[in-house]
């Protein structure tokens, strides 16, 4: 979880934004940056408008001075108005609480062990797995998701006018109406497709996007090299069991299973015996029940479990 930003920090940043906008109001890049900043926290818009109100209020000083200065102030006012025209809508959207307006990017963080379902304004649904971070922006011609960490599964509502694109590092996954998951890993991203077809490419990579169809899996490397072919994966349902808070094991080694549980829990499973680590196991567990898994594995393989404060150690018998 991201630490909550203090109101004082927001206040300081807001003042800086107001001054930056005053200096460079024609700059579209600045506008985009400001939008992104504002979208990060409701309080930011509040702090921004507060600082802006004080800043604008100071314009009244020019009334006392009069003369040609007034005209100059007038034009900067108009320019600033044009720049901030969109904020009214943004503010209205924010205040209407959770009716995602088009411009608004929403960020989602899940804590360790947390699994979250997020309905989107277009009818799509995201399921966000443990310890993940993503941003969803519903734009007029693009539904843009940025997966910064972790894993998420998307059931995408059909809308050919508005492609749905997931950005995971340099890897891109594009869908029109389909269901798929993306997991950001070291060196690349795992794409699993449960319905329809998606296209996968890498930002700087060469060659045409690769199509991945329902029931297939593709690991897209960050460097774009050696385009892997999508592989049929009969195992998708099992791999996506996390959406229901479950871990399904079907012949995985205890080491793999332990790694899977450790994605969800502070208390980590350590398989201390190498022979045990290679044993294969079948079972169906809650993601938040590593103890239950360890007990079951120990019983099956004649091992022993010692529960520590932060670890669950699995040893041979």
């Amino acid at each position, binding site marked *: 979880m991201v630490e909550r930003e*203090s109101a004082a*920090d927001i206040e300081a940043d807001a003042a*800086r934004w107001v001054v930056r906008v*005053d200096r460079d109001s024609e700059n579209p890049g600045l506008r985009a940056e400001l939008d992104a900043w504002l979208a990060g926290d409701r309080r930011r818009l509040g702090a921004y408008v507060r600082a802006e109100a*004080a800043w604008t209020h*100071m314009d009244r000083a020019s009334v006392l001075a009069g003369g040609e200065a007034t005209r100059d102030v007038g034009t900067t006012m108009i320019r600033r108005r044009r720049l901030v025209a969109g*904020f*009214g809508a943004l503010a209205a959207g*924010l205040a209407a609480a959770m009716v995602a307006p088009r411009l608004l990017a929403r960020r989602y963080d899940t804590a360790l062990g947390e699994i979250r379902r997020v309905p989107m304004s277009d009818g799509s649904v995201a399921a966000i797995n443990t310890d993940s971070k993503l941003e969803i922006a519903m734009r007029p011609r693009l539904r843009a998701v940025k997966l910064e960490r972790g894993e998420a599964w998307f059931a995408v509502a059909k809308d050919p006018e508005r492609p749905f694109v997931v950005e995971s590092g340099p890897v891109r996954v594009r869908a029109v109406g389909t269901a798929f998951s993306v997991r950001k890993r070291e060196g690349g991203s795992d794409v699993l497709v449960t319905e329809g077809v998606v296209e996968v490419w890498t930002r700087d990579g060469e060659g045409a996007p690769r199509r991945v169809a329902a029931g297939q899996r593709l690991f897209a490397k960050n460097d774009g090299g050696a385009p892997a072919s999508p592989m049929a994966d009969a195992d998708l349902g099992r791999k996506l069991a996390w959406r229901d808070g479950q871990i399904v094991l079907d012949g995985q080694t205890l080491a793999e299973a332990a790694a899977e549980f450790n994605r969800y829990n502070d208390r980590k499973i350590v398989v201390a015996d190498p022979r045990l680590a290679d044993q294969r196991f079948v079972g169906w567990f809650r993601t938040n029940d590593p103890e239950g898994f360890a007990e079951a594995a120990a019983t099956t393989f004649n091992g022993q479990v010692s529960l520590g404060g932060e670890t669950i150690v699995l040893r041979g018998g």
Partner: protein
Amino acid sequence: MSEGRARVVAWLGREILPHEASVRAWLRRSFAAAGDVDDILQETYCRLAALTNIDHIDQPRGYFFQAARSVALEQIRRARVVRIETVSEIEALDLALEDPSAERIVSGRRELERVKGLIAALPDRCRRIFEMRKIEGVPQREIARRLGVTEHVVENEAVRGLRAILAAMTEQDAPARSHGTRDREGGEKTDGRTRKRR
């Protein structure tokens, strides 16, 4: 739309900011246990920013109190542990509204004098920059050229000045906070009046 928004921003500066000190004081009194008063205020401004029309608001001060109250109540309801007293205290809004000593809004010529006074109270270079920008209407780039400093310096000074002015408009003890430093200690303002939250 943009015209409307400019009006709302002007209205906030004229009719709302001057009451922030009383709203803040009231929130601190009746809401000390439940959350960060500055969070509540920012959230409240966020809602006020959503206004597209302000013509129907006869009593900006009362409106500000009501908006802050509804944000505060929501935060209490969201919090897991709710102290009954907190809710009943915060309901006592009428009392705070009637507090005549908090009535600090001034009008017309005096208000303009006050704005000039706020600028005049800034540290030297900061004040000069505000005068050029706000009274003479000189763009920041040109200010930097005239003062022989980088635009970045102008930006920093303007930010510092804006924060000091905001503090002066919304609190009585502005000088304590006019140094442009962030209050990092647990987000508490170091104005010596802040009640410790429980």
